[in-house]
């Protein structure tokens, strides 16, 4: 069979071509695994589901690194009593969110921009998935390190705010590294300011006065992301 030929070319054994293509179609295409199939059903879009499983910060290497960091924090907590997991989890999640999307980390960014599946939907799906995974891993590590319930769950809101800052910076500047830097810096400032004011590292997680600022930060971050990912209308 010659190459570069279309299926409708004259003089070809059309039946053989069709048979071969059907065989090839069955052999070459990968069967989606469980998570991708589930995602496809939930999202009602196989394209979005495939985009989700190719998220850089949902790749196995990244997940392993996240688990290692949180596990180290859990072990250190058991050894010293300092609750490292609630302090680390927001930073790790912010980095994961910043690395979920963008030209800095997606090699086929240019191509993706021309696709029918909107990149804003891809961003939303990826960000939510990364957030959910980090929340689950963080909760597991918190529970394993035996810290109090207030700390075990208390970092979810700060994590949301840190992720919002990271994602907003990443989408606005189109750089995942700037997103990581912004998220990390914001979280470090809050933790250290809390320690300066109260002498406790965990003040950033437990202080009731910070609930409203975290919520506002998360909302503002979301608004910035929506603005940065808006598709400019055409001129006609």
């Amino acid at each position, binding site marked *: *069979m010659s*190459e*570069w*030929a*279309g*299926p409708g*070319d004259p003089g070809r054994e059309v039946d053989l071509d069709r048979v*071969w*293509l*059907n065989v*090839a*179609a*069955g052999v*070459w*295409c*990968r069967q989606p695994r469980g998570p991708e199939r589930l995602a*496809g059903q939930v999202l009602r*879009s*196989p*394209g979005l589901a*495939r*985009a989700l499983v*190719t998220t850089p910060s949902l790749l196995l290497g990244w997940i392993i690194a996240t688990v290692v960091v949180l596990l180290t924090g859990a072990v250190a907590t058991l050894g010293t009593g300092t609750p490292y997991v609630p302090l680390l989890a927001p930073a790790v999640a912010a980095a994961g969110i910043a690395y979920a999307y963008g030209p800095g980390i*997606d*090699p*086929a*960014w*240019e*191509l*993706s*921009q*021309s*696709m*029918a*599946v*909107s990149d804003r939907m891809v961003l939303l799906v990826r960000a939510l998935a990364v957030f959910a995974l980090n929340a689950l891993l963080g909760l597991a590590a918190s529970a394993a390190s035996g810290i109090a319930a207030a700390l075990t769950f208390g970092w979810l809101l700060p994590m949301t705010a840190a992720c919002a800052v990271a994602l907003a910076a990443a989408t606005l500047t189109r750089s995942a590294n700037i997103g990581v830097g912004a998220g990390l810096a914001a979280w470090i400032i809050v933790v250290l300011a809390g320690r300066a004011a109260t002498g406790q590292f965990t003040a950033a997680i437990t202080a009731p006065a910070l609930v409203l600022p975290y919520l506002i930060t998360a909302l503002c971050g979301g608004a910035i992301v929506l603005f940065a990912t808006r*598709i*400019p*209308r*055409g*001129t*006609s």
Partner: protein
Amino acid sequence: MNVELTDLTRRFGRTQAVAGVSLTGGPGVFGLLGPNGAGKTSLLRMMATVLPPTSGRMRLLGRDPGGYGPRREIRRRLGYLPQNLGYYPGFTVAEFVEYFALLKDMPASQVPRAVATAVERVGLGDRARAKLRTLSGGMLRRAGIAQAIVNEPELLLLDEPTAGLDPEQRLEFRALLRNMGQRATVIVSTHLVEDVGAACTEVALMDMGKIVFHGTPADLIARGEGTSAAGDAPLERGYSAVLAAARSAVAARA
């Protein structure tokens, strides 16, 4: 008409990459020639709806890409090969083409056969399950072409598609272009004048953001006859003559 551009411009800061381009086109193969920095890639990116124009009107496949819904429809029927093709090294050829078939909202049931067809058409059937990181530059380019044609697009935009292809593969690629051009509007941006001559029914020459020539390859050849323009082939001489004339007109105006 699949493509209708009216006074399209694109500015990057103080640089005007595309300066008032007007073009219409229906089914067929349309060549876009020009020196480096002429604005070909920017024009193609605007038509691929990756870059919004600064001003002007654009209608693609009878739709205005300014709206979310029409743009999505255009993208479902669009095939695009960018100049710098990024890829995922861990994907196989088939997975790569399939990924973009899904992102083009192709019905899932049609995707496997469409992928197989596209991969065979670009001659990568024997490397369909090879990881992209193991492919040569030319094979990667062919994988990029495969993802562009997987959805049988009505508008196919190819930026430097023959980069890295050997002469035999370029011959086969021209045959593919002619085949695609029977049903779709194919716009090929290239430096290689002979590709345009062999496959294209219409040619436009860009320089400094403007279209300085629009016609058939024969018209371009005619522009070079009787001149002392540089070039080893008639098309090359026509190309050089048109560019020289355009630049001296600009210099005279300045």
